[in-house]
């Protein structure tokens, strides 16, 4: 059977029902990501996947969740910077929504890093916190982006995108300083290093990258959902505003 009639039928179906790709694609991606995450978790937990580390034992497997979460968070904040700069230049509302979404999801992933870090440090070094590079930088990033989210919540809606974008740029400027100051601080006050230091077993690297891929896909889907929610929210807000402008009896607004 030739390909063309099928393609034609599919394109007709899509044009008649524009939401179709999303209705089909999103659930498919969810299932695929679920499978990927499960496989990655299996590989992280089973000695068949990642070999058990000699000194730390099973606890070291927290590494496969701790590190990819950090990398995903950094990636999301990087996208936030891009979206914020783009917004400052072009004032595009989509960029503003993207900035908000990546900041929120980034904070969630940072929280995971900050929770798994101490859970890992405690049995290994007997302390809950260590001024490790990754952990400390994540803490400062978490603080900066939480303050970003507070700014978004507390400023009046007209100015929020611009103010938030300016804060994001300054926050990003801060990152190299955070890195260097902690690096030097640690050379003066040596701290336990979380992670494998230098070389890493290739099987461990493989599982690490697998988990990073899985979490990145997961982050993408979460961002997509949050993006759709925010777009819908803004459309509803506009509808409410139009209503009150036209002086129709307004429906009771549900509390936010």
């Amino acid at each position, binding site marked *: 059977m030739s390909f063309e009639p099928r393609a034609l039928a599919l394109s007709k179906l899509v044009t008649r029902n524009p939401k179709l790709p999303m209705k089909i694609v999103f659930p498919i991606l969810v299932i695929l990501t679920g499978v990927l995450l499960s496989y990655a978790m299996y590989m992280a937990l089973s000695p068949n996947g990642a070999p058990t580390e000699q000194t730390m034992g099973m606890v070291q497997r927290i590494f496969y969740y701790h590190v990819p979460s950090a990398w995903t968070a950094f990636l999301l904040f990087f996208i936030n910077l891009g979206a914020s700069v783009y917004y400052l230049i072009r004032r595009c509302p989509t960029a503003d929504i993207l900035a908000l979404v990546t900041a929120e999801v980034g904070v969630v992933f940072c929280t995971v890093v900050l929770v798994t870090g101490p859970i890992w440090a405690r049995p290994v070094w007997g302390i809950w916190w260590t001024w490790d590079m990754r952990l400390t930088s994540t803490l400062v990033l978490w603080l900066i982006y939480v303050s970003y989210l507070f700014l978004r919540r507390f400023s009046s809606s007209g100015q929020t995108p611009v103010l938030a974008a300016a804060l994001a740029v300054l926050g990003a400027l801060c990152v190299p300083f955070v890195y260097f100051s902690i690096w030097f601080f640690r050379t003066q006050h040596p701290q336990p290093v979380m992670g494998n230091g230098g070389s890493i077993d290739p099987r461990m690297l493989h599982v690490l990258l697998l988990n990073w891929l899985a979490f990145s896909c997961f982050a993408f889907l979460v961002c997509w959902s949050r993006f759709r929610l925010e777009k819908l929210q803004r459309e509803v807000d506009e509808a409410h505003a139009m*209503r009150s402008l036209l002086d129709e009896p307004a429906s009771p607004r549900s509390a936010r």
Partner: protein
Amino acid sequence: MTADPYLFAAYAATWIIHIAYLTTIVRRYARLKREIEELKK
């Protein structure tokens, strides 16, 4: 897989945090849908 409590706690905490966030998204979405129904009336 040996039952290491810290390992379990770390993985559980990760998913609890993610599910909590997803729950807030789902709830807000449901609330918005209700608002849209009201607006349509």
